[in-house]
């Protein structure tokens, strides 16, 4: 007797849990031959709201972790992802990739995570500055995470593109609400399962699946999102995003033209896309009794 296969339901990832969308809706992306890839949640704006609430709650804990510890956790994600290589390859193939290209993409994704894991405790001393000023002050400019970052992940590069936009924001201490590729969403939810088992605290990364045409206005308009990374193309979408983002002066980074499959697509400057510069003035004074005046 032949066995009936058990098909996986891909649920969204909010606050460290895997709920279904509150709207109860789903959609079925298809591969090139018209076969259904599975049942995916068609997230609503309320799922986005819930994800932002979860992310905001996770921000103090994640951003105040020692940078070295964040690096350890990013490295742990890479480890767990490597261990599930076969599953990611199978999903990429189902989404239309060749086996060879899929294997390369997964390997590249692991390497990219390791790359940004290394930058966690280095970008601040590399990019921060001690500024010369005309008065008796030490003047520092240091980088700090912006807060809740919304990422609209690349549509075509559904794994390495996603990781390449996600990892710099995480490395810099931000928390993330991520909208996965609409046509190729399988890897994003499997990655969420990796994140949940890799010491990443709940709420630090939240993954939604669904239609960008429906969700983009709310990504742009939400007052509690501090920055948006847009990994796709489309002049109209970009204009709408920038108009909406102007209301609370969100920073919008456009990364839709990058080829994430290149080995050299990693870039420490991407970390700075979701950082704010804080400049502090510290008076240089003679401390009583000490001669040095440091």
């Amino acid at each position: 007797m032949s066995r009936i296969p058990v098909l996986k339901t891909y649920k969204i990832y909010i606050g460290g849990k895997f709920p279904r969308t509150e709207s109860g809706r789903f959609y079925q992306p298809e591969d090139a031959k018209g076969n259904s890839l599975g049942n995916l949640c068609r997230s609503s704006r309320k799922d986005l709201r819930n994800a932002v609430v979860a992310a905001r709650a996770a921000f103090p804990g994640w951003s105040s972790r020692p940078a070295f510890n964040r690096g350890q956790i990013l490295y742990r994600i890479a480890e767990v992802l490597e261990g599930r290589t076969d599953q990611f390859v199978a999903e990429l193939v189902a989404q239309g990739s060749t086996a060879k290209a899929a294997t390369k993409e997964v390997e590249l994704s692991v390497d990219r995570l390791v790359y940004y894991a290394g930058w966690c405790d280095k970008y601040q001393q590399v990019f921060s500055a001690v500024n010369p000023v005309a008065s008796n002050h030490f003047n520092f400019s240091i980088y700090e995470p912006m807060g809740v970052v919304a990422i609209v992940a690349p549509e075509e590069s559904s794994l390495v593109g996603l990781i390449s936009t996600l990892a710099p924001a995480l490395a810099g201490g931000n928390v993330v609400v991520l909208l996965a590729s609409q046509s190729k969403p399988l890897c994003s939810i499997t990655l969420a399962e990796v994140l949940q088992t890799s010491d990443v605290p709940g709420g630090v990364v939240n993954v939604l699946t669904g239609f960008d045409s429906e969700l983009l206005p709310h990504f742009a308009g939400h007052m509690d999102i501090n920055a948006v990374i847009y990994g796709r193309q489309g002049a109209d979408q970009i204009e709408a995003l920038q108009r909406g983002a102007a209301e609370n002066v969100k920073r919008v980074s456009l990364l839709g033209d990058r080829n994430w499959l290149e080995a050299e697509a990693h870039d420490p400057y991407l970390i700075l896309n979701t950082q704010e510069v804080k400049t502090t003035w510290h008076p240089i004074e003679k401390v009583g009794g000490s001669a040095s005046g440091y």
Partner: protein
Amino acid sequence: MSSSVPTTIPDFRLTPTIDQVGVEERAARFRTRSIKKEAKVAGLKLALSMIDLTTLEGQDTENKVRQLCYKARHLHDAYDGLPTVAAVCVYPSLVRVAKQALGDSGIRVASVATAFPSGQAPMPVKLDDTRFAVAEGADEVDMVISRGRFHQGEYNYVYDEIAAVKAACGEARLKVILETGELGTLDSVRRASEIAMHAGADFIKTSTGKIKPAATMPVTLVMLEAIRDFYFQTGKMVGMKPAGGISAAKPALHYLVMLKETLGNAWMNNHWFRFGASRLANDVLMQLVKQQTGRYQSSDYFSKD
């Protein structure tokens, strides 16, 4: 009970037992009501007008209380037509400051008393505490019952204590805090509610906010049903105040649904129903502005207190 008005104090050992599973299922039903658009805005404004804006910390300063009073008067000036909160709730030593800061705004001053939050003090101290708060200008007094005595079965002591504090309150309205998180069972909540109402409480209140769990929907439902039964028995209305743990707008709307479906419209105002909360106001404001602008709001744009 045959007569409509009891002439003697009832035997509190005989209060009805509560079906916990039934109460929890009933309470869960209230969370499934869909309230949208105009009804939601009206509900949110009503909830706002029922808030007792509260600060009860050892670190409270006079200026912290003045700041809270300012917040009570000016919840969010960018939004036209907002109500003010119902009252500001502080410790007795800060009542005078709050009274002065609130002036003629119509916002009442509530004061905790009777050795809040533990209630572990001798009776004369508790009465002095109450008289002091009233003399300083408190319009409302929030007292705590002696939970220890209650657990020992000394219901008469608890009753007498509430009656004595009520007498000490004079004109001020008395809210009786049962501290349901320390009562253990819903049966005890029901019993304590009846003791408080028969002893003269104007309000019964769930919690001090210092103990977890604080207000929950099942506990509040049991108390609302006790109020309803007491009203049918005596014709006297008693108010309800869930306090602690209600920090979001949506649960607040669920409480209003529960209030409406249990006690009806007569209780749907801040004379008979209050929320004891410090963080709820901002979430309600954020939801109201969301309804107005269509944009989800951030706490960055609302004053903390």
